[in-house]
C-alpha cells in the first residue's frame, strides 16, 4: 500500500486578509508547478447571503517550491468571473482543474446554478489563461461538457489530463437525487471523456469505479496520474445520507488501471485516513497527487469538505 505521511494543514482561508470573496473554504486543490513556486488552485466562498446560500469562486495560492508551507502570494482576485443571469455558472465555479498547453493554461471547472426542486445543478465549463494562470477567459457562456441521456445532471469535479497528445477528462455525473428526511442529496459516480482538442468530447458513458460502501455511494475527485507502467487514481467517496459527520463522511479511495478504461479499486492501498483529532478528524476528501523535486505529495481537504483549508501529505517509500 501507499504510505503517506501527513505534513499538516498548509492553507487556511480564514487567515487571508482583504478579500471579501475569500472568507471560508479552500476546496479541491489542483496544482501547477512553476520554477520558484507551486500554484495551488482551490475554490472558496464569501460569507453566505441572507438566505444561507453560498457562491463559490476559484483562486490560487503560491507555495514556495523550496518550502511548501511558506505562502508567497494569494490571488488578488478570483481567476474566473461568475456567469451571467440564467447561465450555468451563475452561482459558483467549483472545482477547477488546470493543465498547461503550450503558452496557455487550460481550466475546466464546475459551474453551479440554483434550482427549485433540488438545490443546484452543475455542468463543466472551459476557460484559458494567457498570463501564466492568473486570470482566465471563458470560451463561451455555456458549458463544454453537459447533460446527456445517461448523465442527466450534476456534471462536476473535472480533472483534466493529457496523455500521448489526447486530452482526458475525469469527472463525476449525478445518478439520482435521493430524498433523505425531506432533503434532496445527490448521488454521483466517476466517469470519463476524451478529446483531441479539449472542446469536443467523447464520453465513455459508464461508471469507472465500482461502488463499495453502498450502491448509492457518492464518488468524487477522480485524480489520475501515470507512473511505473500504470494509471493511478485517488478519489474520495461517501455514503448517500448523513454524510456531513465522521461516520458517513468522505474518505480517500484508490484504484489502478492499465488502459484508463478498466479500473481495479482497492481502497486498502490508499494509505491515508482521518486523524484522531484535529482539522481532518471527521473527513478527508478531494485528493490531488503531484510530484515536486523528487517527492510525491497528496493535497487533500479535511473536515466540512475544506471549510478550514487543505493540507499536504508526502509519500514515503514507493508506489504500491
Amino acid at each position, binding site marked *: 500500500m501507499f504510505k503517506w505521511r501527513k505534513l499538516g494543514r498548509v492553507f487556511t482561508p480564514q487567515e487571508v486578509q482583504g478579500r471579501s470573496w475569500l472568507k471560508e473554504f479552500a476546496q479541491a486543490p489542483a496544482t501547477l508547478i512553476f520554477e520558484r513556486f507551486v500554484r495551488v488552485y482551490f475554490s472558496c466562498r464569501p460569507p453566505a447571503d441572507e438566505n444561507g446560500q453560498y457562491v463559490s469562486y476559484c483562486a490560487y495560492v503560491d507555495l514556495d517550491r523550496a518550502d511548501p508551507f511558506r505562502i508567497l502570494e494569494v490571488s488578488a482576485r478570483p481567476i474566473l468571473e461568475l456567469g451571467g443571469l*440564467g447561465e450555468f455558472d451563475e452561482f459558483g465555479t467549483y472545482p477547477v482543474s488546470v493543465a498547461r498547453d503550450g503558452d496557455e493554461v487550460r481550466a475546466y471547472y464546475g459551474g453551479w446554478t440554483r434550482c427549485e426542486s433540488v438545490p443546484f445543478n452543475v455542468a463543466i465549463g472551459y476557460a484559458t489563461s494567457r498570463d501564466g494562470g492568473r486570470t482566465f477567459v471563458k470560451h463561451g457562456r455555456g458549458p463544454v461538457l453537459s*447533460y446527456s*441521456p445517461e448523465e442527466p445532471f450534476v456534471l462536476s469535479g473535472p480533472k483534466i489530463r493529457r496523455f500521448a497528445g489526447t486530452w482526458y477528462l475525469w469527472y463525476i455525473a449525478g445518478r439520482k437525487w435521493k430524498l433523505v428526511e425531506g432533503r434532496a442529496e445527490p448521488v454521483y459516480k466517476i466517469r470519463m471523456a476524451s478529446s483531441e482538442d479539449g472542446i469536443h468530447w467523447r464520453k465513455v458513458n459508464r461508471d469507472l469505479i465500482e461502488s463499495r460502501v453502498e450502491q448509492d455511494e457518492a464518488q468524487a475527485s477522480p485524480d489520475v496520474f501515470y507512473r511505473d507502467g500504470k494509471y493511478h487514481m485517488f478519489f474520495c467517496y461517501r455514503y448517500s445520507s448523513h454524510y456531513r459527520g465522521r461516520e458517513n463522511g468522505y474518505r480517500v479511495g484508490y484504484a489502478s488501471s492499465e488502459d484508463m478504461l478498466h479500473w481495479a479499486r482497492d481502497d486498502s492501498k490508499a494509505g491515508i485516513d482521518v486523524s484522531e483529532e484535529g482539522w481532518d478528524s471527521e473527513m478527508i476528501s478531494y485528493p490531488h497527487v503531484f510530484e515536486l523535486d523528487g517527492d510525491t505529495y497528496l493535497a487533500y481537504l479535511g473536515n466540512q469538505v475544506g471549510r478550514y483549508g487543505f493540507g499536504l501529505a508526502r509519500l514515503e517509500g514507493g508506489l504500491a
Partner: protein
Amino acid sequence: MRWKKLGKIFDPTQFALPNDCLQFAQSPQALLFDDFVRIYFSTRSTDRTNGKYLSHVAFVDMRKNLREVIGVCAHAAIELGALGCFDEHGIFPMNVLRHGSVIYGYTCGWSRRVSVSVETAIGLALSDDDGISFRRIGDGPVLAASLHEPCLVGDPFVRRYGDAFHMWYIFGTGWRKFTHDSAPDRTYKIGHAVSHDGVEWTKEEARQIVADRLGPDESQALPSVVEIDGRYHMFFCYRQSYDFRRNRTRGYRIGHAWSDDLSNWTRDDDRPGIDVTEGGWDSDMMCYPHAFACDGNVYLLYNGNEFGRYGFGLAVLE
C-alpha cells in the same frame, strides 16, 4: 400560396384530459395514420406544492377531415421526469416522427430555476405502441446548453431527409431584465443540428438560421418544416422579448422562411402570410405553428390568444 383559416378545431375545456388538466392545448403536432390524425399537444395541471403549472403531453385523435374528434387519450403520452431531471416540471412541446415501426418523440423538457424562471433541454422518448405511450431513452437530454448556446435549448422539430436526421430547434441567447421591476425575460433564436441516428446530434452551434424581423430582441420559437412543390418551407412564431404577454402589438405572430438546401433560409413572412383576426379566438396572438401535409393538402395547426389556453385552430394552404 395563401392560408385560409378554418377556425378553432379543439377546445381543451370541453374534454376530460389526463392528470386533471383543465386548460391549454399548446403546440399541436400531427402524427398521421391511415384513417385518422393523432394530434399531440401540451396541457397543464397545477403543481399542488406551489400552485405553479406542470405541462403534460396529451393527444386527440381526429378524423382526416380535421373536424370530427374521435377521442382524447386516457393517459399522458409520457410521464414527467424524475427529481432534478431536465423535464421534471413539464414537457412542452413534443414533436413526433415515424421511424420504421417506432415513433420518436422529441421533447422539450422544463425545469425550474431560482434566478430565472426555467431552463429547458431536448430529450428523446420512443413509442412502440403507435404513439400511445413513450419511454425516454435516458433520464437526461440529447441536446442541451453548450459553449455558445448558453441556455434554453428547446422546441425540437425533427425530420429525416436522405440518410440524415435534421433538427430545427431554438437556443437561448441570454436572459435580461428589460425594465427595472420586471422579471428576467429570455431571447431565443432558431438553430439547426444533424444526426445519423437521431440520438447523437451535431449542432451548428449558435448559428441563427432565420433572420430577425424585429431586430436583435426578437424571440423566435417552434420551427416547423414542410416540403411544398420541391421547396422547404419553415413556419415558426416570433415576438418581442418583453411585454409580449398582454400587449397585442408585441405578442407572437407567425413567421415564414424557405430554403432549397435545408441550410440557407430566406425569410419571407408574407408569402404565404397569416395574421391575427379582429374579434376572433386568435385576435391578439398567433403562435406555435405546425405545418404538415395530409391527403394532398398542406395544413397549419396553431394556437391563438393566451398561448393556447383555449385550444388550437387550423388553416389550409390554397
